[in-house]
């Protein structure tokens, strides 16, 4: 009666002996048989030998039977339900319409689950159904909730990740996942974004389960999107940059779309793309030449048309770092001189400088006593340089150059504008420079850091004096410590004369004359200033070459000082990042919507050591409007660094600007660019991809249907395995009388025969 509940049995050993003891007993039994055989090896009658060994073997077997205590284990077994995972897409793309002007894809998925509820219930009798919602992650869900189509919000669609997580799950030991049913629009933007190939295919096959798919949304949507933008991470200034973008069109009419490339609000290039109905991808190629170094946010944008499914995917921003290839330097010289020669040699041999020079070798007063064809002279291409090519230079140097004889008045405003817009300008002294060259009444006057004093050049020998500003400025840093720096300057040879000038307001005088004064202020020898976005420098002597050859002629001297001063000056003038007292570096130059903008600010003291405890004011500024959209106050650590994290602004191009000060003294400012994406990849691609879902099913052996079918696809599930559950009962079979009787009979039979045949 009780046995009726058991439907399976197994033969087991009920012996209380440990396994090793049973093994030893087994070996002893074998030894008993072997000894019997060994003792009978000289027996000439085989039937006797076989008879006795057989009896010994039977005796040992009977003894083992008794010791092993065999029994029958009665089992109550049942078929366990294996798992079937039902994965429902909860990513943001499910909020798009399934068809033009239709319900959302999430709603369609909800309706579908309602329609197939009876089929699911039938499946639930044989399988354990596990319902999940997935986007970038996988989370358990309730069928009832899924049928109500909760709002899809996930910013990613990771189909493969969801399947792997479901397969690796299993809420009970031994419960195997035998299949998966996926309801999705197929808009994967992680591993399967590029389709099923290579590693993605291998991962799918490794699941070893049939994945059946239900395509939600396969209808057509009207949409225009800037889907991809390809550009190098950095570009060289004044070198052509190519930006390749892909404009995708879905259900758009044949129209000409004006696509623009903007740099922080300014249009730098525009292309018109002809949209062809039926063609999805339309490549767009922009070519432009950046004329400034720095990091800039660029935006590729197309207009938004009436009836588009998604309005936020019509633009895409990226950050481009524009760097300098070499410092392109224009050297214009009024006449050959030793000062010119040494500067040219320095610039010409510097691998970081690309030198373009023009020397006036002959003035209208000179008579070379030769025909033009006997001379190597070329006309001075004023228009070419100062009108067409000017913007291509990083640095312009006027060395003892008078502009008037070359009718350059009309071009000087170009030079001023060039500096205003970020260029660098140096005027080196001589009888044709500053006031002597008539620059005080020229358009360059307000830009040059010094004003002429109105007196003739001073020809007294003098040793330039390092000023307060000069003690700290990178141009005049010739040694690591202030004392060594002072000593280096003091050891230089005296200079033979200066143009007499006075510093302009806003100029920094780095070197001045030790005793020549103008209006009570020592005459500047080396002065710098910021002008607009550019920088200007004035060196009021034409004998800086003394710091080269003459210095080298002194005991233990060399020309290193001359090279260092000019190298420092060039680096400062062209804004070498290494000489920037405040540096801002955004952690990511493209930020997804909703993510904060993080940046690292590095502040240096005036001696370029890390500024510990500097106050940093960070602002997030809209690059197109200049509006401040976020701000933060920070203090730097011992390494001079601080980390800012600003609230995520809306989509667009932004600058992170930082101003730092130490003990109330301003250290400087810096900035970096960041693009906040208008839409995540999830929200910018409206395409349903039933083809991807079908491919998943094909690879894994599952079925595929459209949600509109209202029925489940063929799931290709294997039958559940049989596993033990419930009760078990042991029934001994060793304690039967026949086992002992067999043992006794065999042993006594052997004994009797041995006695009879004379083996005792």
């Amino acid at each position, binding site marked *: 009666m009780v046995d009726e509940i058991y439907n399976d049995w197994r033969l087991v050993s009920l012996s209380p002996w440990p396994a090793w003891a049973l093994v030893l007993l087994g070996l002893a039994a074998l030894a008993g048989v072997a000894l019997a055989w060994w003792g009978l090896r000289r027996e000439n009658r085989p039937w006797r030998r076989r008879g006795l060994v057989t009896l010994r073997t039977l005796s040992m077997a009977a003894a083992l039977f008794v010791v092993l205590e065999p029994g029958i284990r009665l089992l109550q077994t049942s078929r366990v339900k294996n798992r079937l995972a039902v994965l429902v897409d909860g990513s943001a793309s499910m909020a798009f319409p399934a068809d033009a002007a239709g319900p959302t894809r999430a709603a369609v998925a909800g309706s579908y689950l309602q329609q197939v509820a009876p089929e699911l219930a039938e499946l639930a009798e044989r399988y354990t159904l596990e319902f999940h919602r997935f986007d970038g992650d996988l989370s358990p869900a309730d069928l009832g909730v899924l049928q109500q189509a909760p709002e899809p919000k996930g910013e990613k669609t990771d189909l493969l990740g969801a399947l792997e997580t479901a397969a690796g799950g299993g809420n009970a030991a031994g419960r195997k996942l035998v299949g998966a049913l996926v309801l999705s629009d197929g808009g994967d933007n992680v591993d399967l974004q590029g389709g099923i190939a290579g590693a993605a295919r291998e991962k799918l096959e490794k699941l070893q389960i049939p994945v059946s798919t239900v395509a939600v949304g396969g209808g057509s949507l009207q949409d225009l999107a800037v889907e991809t933008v390809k550009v190098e991470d950095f570009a060289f200034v004044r070198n052509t940059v190519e930006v390749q973008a892909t404009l995708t069109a879905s259900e758009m009419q044949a129209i000409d779309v004006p696509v623009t490339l903007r740099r922080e609000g300014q249009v730098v290039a525009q292309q018109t793309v002809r949209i062809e109905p039926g063609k999805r991808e339309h490549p767009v190629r922009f070519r432009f030449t950046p004329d400034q170094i720095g990091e800039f946010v660029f935006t590729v944008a197309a207009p938004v048309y009436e009836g588009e499914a998604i309005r936020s995917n019509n633009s895409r921003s990226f950050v481009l770092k524009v760097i300098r290839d070499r410092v392109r330097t224009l050297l214009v010289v*009024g*006449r*050959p*001189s*030793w*000062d*010119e*020669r*040494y500067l*040219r*040699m320095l610039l*010409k*041999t510097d691998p970081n400088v690309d030198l*373009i*020079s*023009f*020397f*006036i*070798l*002959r*003035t209208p*007063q*000179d*008579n*070379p*006593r*030769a025909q*033009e*064809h*006997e*001379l*190597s*002279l*070329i006309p001075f*291409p004023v228009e070419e340089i100062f009108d067409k090519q000017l913007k291509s230079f990083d640095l312009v140097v006027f060395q003892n150059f008078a502009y008037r004889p070359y009718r350059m008045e009309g071009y000087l405003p170009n030079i001023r504008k060039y500096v205003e817009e970020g260029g660098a300008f140096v005027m080196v*002294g*001589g*009888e*044709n420079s500053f006031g*002597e060259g008539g620059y005080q009444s020229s358009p360059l006057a307000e830009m040059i850091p010094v004003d002429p004093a109105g007196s*003739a*050049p001073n*020809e007294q020998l003098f040793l330039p004096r390092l000023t307060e500003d000069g003690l700290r400025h990178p141009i005049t840093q010739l040694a690591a410590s202030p004392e060594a720096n002072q000593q280096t300057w003091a050891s230089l040879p005296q200079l*033979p*004369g200066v*143009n007499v000038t006075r510093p302009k307001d806003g100029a920094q005088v780095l070197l001045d004359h030790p005793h020549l004064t103008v209006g009570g202020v020592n005459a500047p020898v080396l002065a710098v200033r910021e002008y607009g976005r550019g920088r200007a420098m004035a060196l009021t*002597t*034409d*004998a800086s070459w*003394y710091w*080269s*050859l*003459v210095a*080298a*002629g*002194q005991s233990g001297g*060399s*020309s290193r000082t001359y090279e260092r001063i000019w190298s420092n000056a060039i680096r400062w003038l062209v804004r070498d990042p290494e000489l920037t007292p405040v540096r801002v570096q955004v952690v990511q130059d493209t930020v997804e919507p909703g993510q904060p903008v993080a940046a690292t600010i590095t502040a240096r003291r005036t001696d370029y050591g890390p500024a510990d405890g500097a106050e940093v004011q960070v602002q997030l500024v809209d690059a197109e409007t200049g509006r401040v959209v976020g701000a933060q106050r920070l203090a730097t650590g011992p390494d001079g660094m601080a980390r800012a994290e600003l609230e995520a602004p809306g989509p667009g191009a932004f600058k992170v600007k930082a101003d730092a000060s130490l003990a109330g003294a301003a250290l400087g400012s810096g900035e970096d660019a960041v693009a906040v994406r208008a839409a995540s990849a999830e929200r910018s691609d409206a395409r349903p991809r039933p083809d991807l879902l079908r491919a998943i099913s094909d690879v894994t052996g599952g079925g595929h249907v459209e949600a509109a079918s209202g029925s489940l696809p063929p799931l290709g599930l294997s039958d559940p395995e049989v596993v033990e559950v419930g009760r078990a009962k042991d029934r001994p079979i060793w304690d039967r009388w026949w086992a002992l009787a067999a043992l006794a009979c065999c042993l006594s039979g052997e004994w009797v025969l041995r006695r009879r045949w004379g083996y005792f």
Partner: protein
Amino acid sequence: MDRRNFLTGLLAASTLFSLPSRALAFGESSRLVFAQGRYEGNWAPRRNALRRLAFEIGTRTSIVTSPQEKPLDLHAPELFRHPFLYLAGDAALPNLGQTALDNLRRYVTYGGFVLCDGSDGGGAFARSCEALFAEILPGQQAGRIPPEHVLYKSFYLVDHPAGRTLQRPWQSGFVHNGRLAVVVTENDLGGAWSRDELGSWEYEVSPGGETQRELAFRLGVNTVMYAMCTDYKEDQVHIPFIMKRRR
């Protein structure tokens, strides 16, 4: 003072005043001043040569020159204030001493330019200069300056070198750090340039006569122009013009 000396002084002064009028703002340091090397022996066989060349350079080019050269000992520290050194002679150089050699080595290494001009007619001075600089610049030997070198197109387009003589139709030189630092000629350039106080050429030029003298001046101008502008005329912008005129 006799009449001759008076006239000589007057003419010398007039030479000064006849220099092109320019705003000479910074005195001597801003002008080209020839340093003439002084050593034991006839270090100035053509005493009026540099003065005349300075005048010609001043009138023909935009370079501002000083009419008076500066005689300097080869071991003098002041040598370094004058990057153009004219070393002349009519016999092989004597032993200059280690101090002078060290001084010249630093001078050339840090950008000084040396023109060695032999007027002996036999090449002994030129050869001694070549040996001197081969010793000063270890591992270097005098090389023939090719006719396409920028030296021959730095201002004038010069086909071949010439001086008072055509002793050697080429010049030799030493290149240091990519620039021609020493030029050696044995054609007596100074002889072709020399003019006395009364305005007469001091030496006949042969075989080319006055045309050859003009060529010597042009070579002098080019040499100075090269010393001051180095390879400026090799810059890309000049090449099409020069190619066109060379045809």
